Structures are given as structure tokens and as C-alpha cells.
């Protein structure tokens, strides 16, 4: 489903990636583990085509970076869910509107938007806080809103970039459990983290990266 093959890439302000290889299959839960600056975020950027390789290629679903047209990128991203350490929520909108935003972008019908957002809110356990603004929520709740937004378009894979990096241990555990639950429904997950403790004892695929190279 996702394949990064022998990719060399450079991007502004970074060291770059050096012959990165990685695969994530349908429904798989994989961890991308490495220290800060190792290139984890860059690997995720490759997947959502924010940076392009100098050599090698990526294959996401059926799209291959070598012959991908720029205008296809938005449609590719609608099949991916992306969450970040800093949540990237719209502070001037409530929880419902933040999640609905991802559907408005796809020109979804109003009735479908309401139905899907309410479904996702129930999945992430925030139905009762749908009218709250992000600044009225805890860090863990904000990340759950971001996960809701990432899920609402029913992605093939959820990309999580240090998704628990800003959270206390309790909230971190809640988010991991939520991601496990999402994965159990068939959505693949690739979670980038610098935290070795997070992956210890878990029977999951672990891809290690250091100095821009996958090990």
C-alpha cells in the first residue's frame, strides 16, 4: 500500500534523506522510530508528497511519485489522515467545525458532513464537547479532535508525526489506545516517534531511522 524505495531527498533547512526504504501494508500498525532530526517527519512528508525525491520513488496506494502530477496531490491527501504534535487545529472554530472542515474541502454534502462528523466525534469520544473551542480542551482532547479530522474522510492510512509528543503520560496512553482501536477497524497507521519506551513490548512493526537512513 505504501512503499518508499531507495529515496534520496533534500529539503530546505534539513540534512536530507539518504536511501530510505520502507513499506507499510494495508491495515498494518508501524512505528517509525529515531532521534530528533533523524528524518522521521521528512519520511512522512514524502508519503503525503510535501517533498519529492531526488532519486528513488514513493508509491502511495496506486500513485507513484515518478509520474504524479501536482494537481493529483490534494486528492491523494484526502486518502491519508495526518496528525501532528502541535495538533494544527483552527482556534477560531469549535470541535465540530474543525472536523467538518476536512469534509467541506471535498465538497461533501451538508447532510453527510453532519452525519460523518457526529460518527467520528463518537469514535474519538468527544460528542459532548463538539461546541468547545480548541483552547477550552486539554492536550489529549485536542489531539483527539485532530485524529477525528484525520479520520473523517476514511483514510487508508493515518500518519502520526510525534502525535503524543506534547501530552502527559495519561493522555499519551489514551491516544495510543485510540489509535489501536482505529487500527483494529482496518485503518493502517504509521506513527513517527523519538520515544523508544512507546514501542517497547508492542508486537508491532518498527522501522528505525538515523541520520536520514532507515536501518
Amino acid at each position: 500500500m505504501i512503499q518508499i524505495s531507495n529515496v534520496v531527498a533534500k529539503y530546505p533547512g534539513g540534512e536530507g534523506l539518504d536511501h530510505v526504504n520502507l513499506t507499510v501494508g494495508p491495515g498494518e500498525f508501524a512505528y517509525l522510530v529515531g532521534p530528533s532530526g533523524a528524518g522521521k517527519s521528512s519520511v512522512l512528508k514524502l508519503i503525503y508528497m510535501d517533498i519529492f525525491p531526488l532519486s528513488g520513488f514513493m508509491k502511495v496506494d496506486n500513485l507513484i511519485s515518478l509520474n504524479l502530477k501536482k494537481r493529483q496531490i490534494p486528492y491523494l491527501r484526502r486518502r491519508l489522515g495526518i496528525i501532528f504534535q502541535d495538533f494544527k487545529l483552527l482556534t477560531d472554530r469549535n470541535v465540530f467545525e474543525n472536523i467538518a472542515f476536512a469534509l467541506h474541502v471535498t465538497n461533501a454534502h451538508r447532510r453527510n458532513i453532519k452525519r460523518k462528523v457526529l460518527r467520528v466525534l463518537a469514535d474519538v469520544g468527544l460528542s459532548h464537547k463538539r461546541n468547545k473551542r480548541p483552547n477550552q480542551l486539554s492536550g489529549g482532547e485536542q489531539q483527539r479532535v485532530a485524529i477525528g479530522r484525520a479520520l473523517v474522510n476514511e483514510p487508508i492510512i493515518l500518519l502520526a508525526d510525534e502525535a503524543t509528543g506534547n501530552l502527559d503520560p495519561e493522555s499519551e496512553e489514551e491516544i495510543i489506545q485510540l489509535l489501536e482501536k482505529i487500527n483494529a477497524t482496518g485503518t493502517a497507521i504509521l506513527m513517527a516517534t523519538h520515544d523508544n519506551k512507546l514501542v517497547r513490548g508492542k508486537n508491532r512493526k518498527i522501522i528505525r531511522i538515523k541520520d536520514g537512513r532507515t536501518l
Partner: protein
Amino acid sequence: MSRGYLYSIVEGFKGLKRAKFSASVSIFTIFLTLILIAVLLIFIFNVNRVVSQIQSRMELEVFIDNSFTQEQIDSLNQQISRIEGVESAHFVSKEEAAAIIEKQLGQDVFEILDENPLPASFQIKLKSSFHSAQKTQTIFDNLLKLDGIDDILYRHDLLALLEKYIHIFLIIMIIIGTLLAFGSIVLVSNTIKLVIFSRRTIIEIMKLVGATKSFISRPFVVEGIVQGIAGGVLASLFFYCLFKIIKLEIPGLILIDQRIYPILLFLGFLFGFVGSMAAIRKFLKY
């Protein structure tokens, strides 16, 4: 209207509400640039008006052969009236010419010369579409072909000079106007760019959730257009009030073409549209 467009329009208006200060700065910038352009347009309009007035007063004075009988003069009158571009031909008899001289000099011409040497003439007015130097010259040439005409007087040099300078004036005004319009769009674009920069997070999120370029740009273009039209309305109101005051204080000083109001609204719309399109482009790269 598709859901996407409706959403963009609603988002555009919400954006204005969210960023009241930057929207006000944008509207004020458009308002100021439109005032400069309007001053230029009013100046051009009024210079043209004065020139047209001078041109419309331009007459050809056709002097008739002294030996011509009244019958021949009537025939000549008909021939002159048939020439293309002639609006009217007013006959001035020898006696009327003498009376005019007497009025001008204060002395009867018979007292000085014992006879009236002044020829009868036609004072010819031209149609407004024949006021140019070239067309007046053609009428002049056609008049010369007629029998019984001794001489024709008209201020060809003044007409040619006026046309030459109005031509240069218009070229200069077009250059200034173009520079002003270009500068306005750059200014408006930069102001809108600041507005967009302050909301780059929402653009980043839009990109991440798969928004197309047109979806991202539409709310900002709607905002730009609304700001542009608002600037146009303000500029129109400003000039409307200003002209009311001028009209009351100094009647007849400046005439205002009423088309200035729709022109200002259209220019406001155009600046807002082009300015926002130019501003958002930079933020749309995937």
C-alpha cells in the same frame, strides 16, 4: 451554485469578520488608490470638456463675392448646407457686417469710406463629430470648390495646436493612469498578502486535508473582491459628498461625469480581485 462556491463565499465573509483590522487596512488602501485614480479621471474629463467647448465654438466665416445676387446667395446657402458636417449656415448681409463693425469700432463705416466694403458672409457651424482639425480642413476644401466664395476664415492653427497638445496630454495621462493602476494593484496585493500571511495556518491545514488550489484561493478572492467593492463604495461616497460641497460653494467650476461612480466600483472590484489572486498565488504551491 455548487456547495464549494457557497462555502467559499461564506468563508470569505467570515474571514472579513475574523480579521477586521487587516480588512480595514486593505479597504483603506483601495479607497486611497481609487481617490488618486478618480482625481486623474476627473482631471482628464474636465480638460476634455474645456477642449470640446473651444472646438464647438470654432466657426468658419465664408465671404461671398460682392457681385453675387440674392438668388445666387440663396443657391450658395443650399449648396453649403448640403456639405457633410455643416450643422448650420447663418447669412450675414453687408449691412449686418457694417453694423457689427460699428458696434466693435463705435463708428459708422460710411462716415470713413463713403461706401460699405464689407462683403456678405456665411457663419458656418459644424456638427460636433466634425470638430477635428482634419475634418474641418475637408469642409474648408469643399467650400473652396463652390462658386462665389472669395475667402474663408477659420482658426486652423489654434485647432491643430489644441489637438496636438491634447494628444500629448492624453498619452501622459494614460501613462500616469497605468502606473497608478499597477501601483495600486501591487499595494493592494501586498496588503492582502499580509492578511493571508496572518492566516497561513488555515492554508497549511487546508493543504493537509486535501484542498485544491481553487478551493484554498476562493475565500481569499471573495474577501479581496468584497474589500475592493467596499473601497469603491467609500471612494464613491467621498466624491459624491465632495462634489456636493464644491457644487454648492463654486457652481460651474468642475463638472462631474456621473459614470465616475460605477467606474470606481468596477476598479475597486478589479483591484480586489487581481490583488487577492496575485497575493494568494505564493501560498498555493504544493
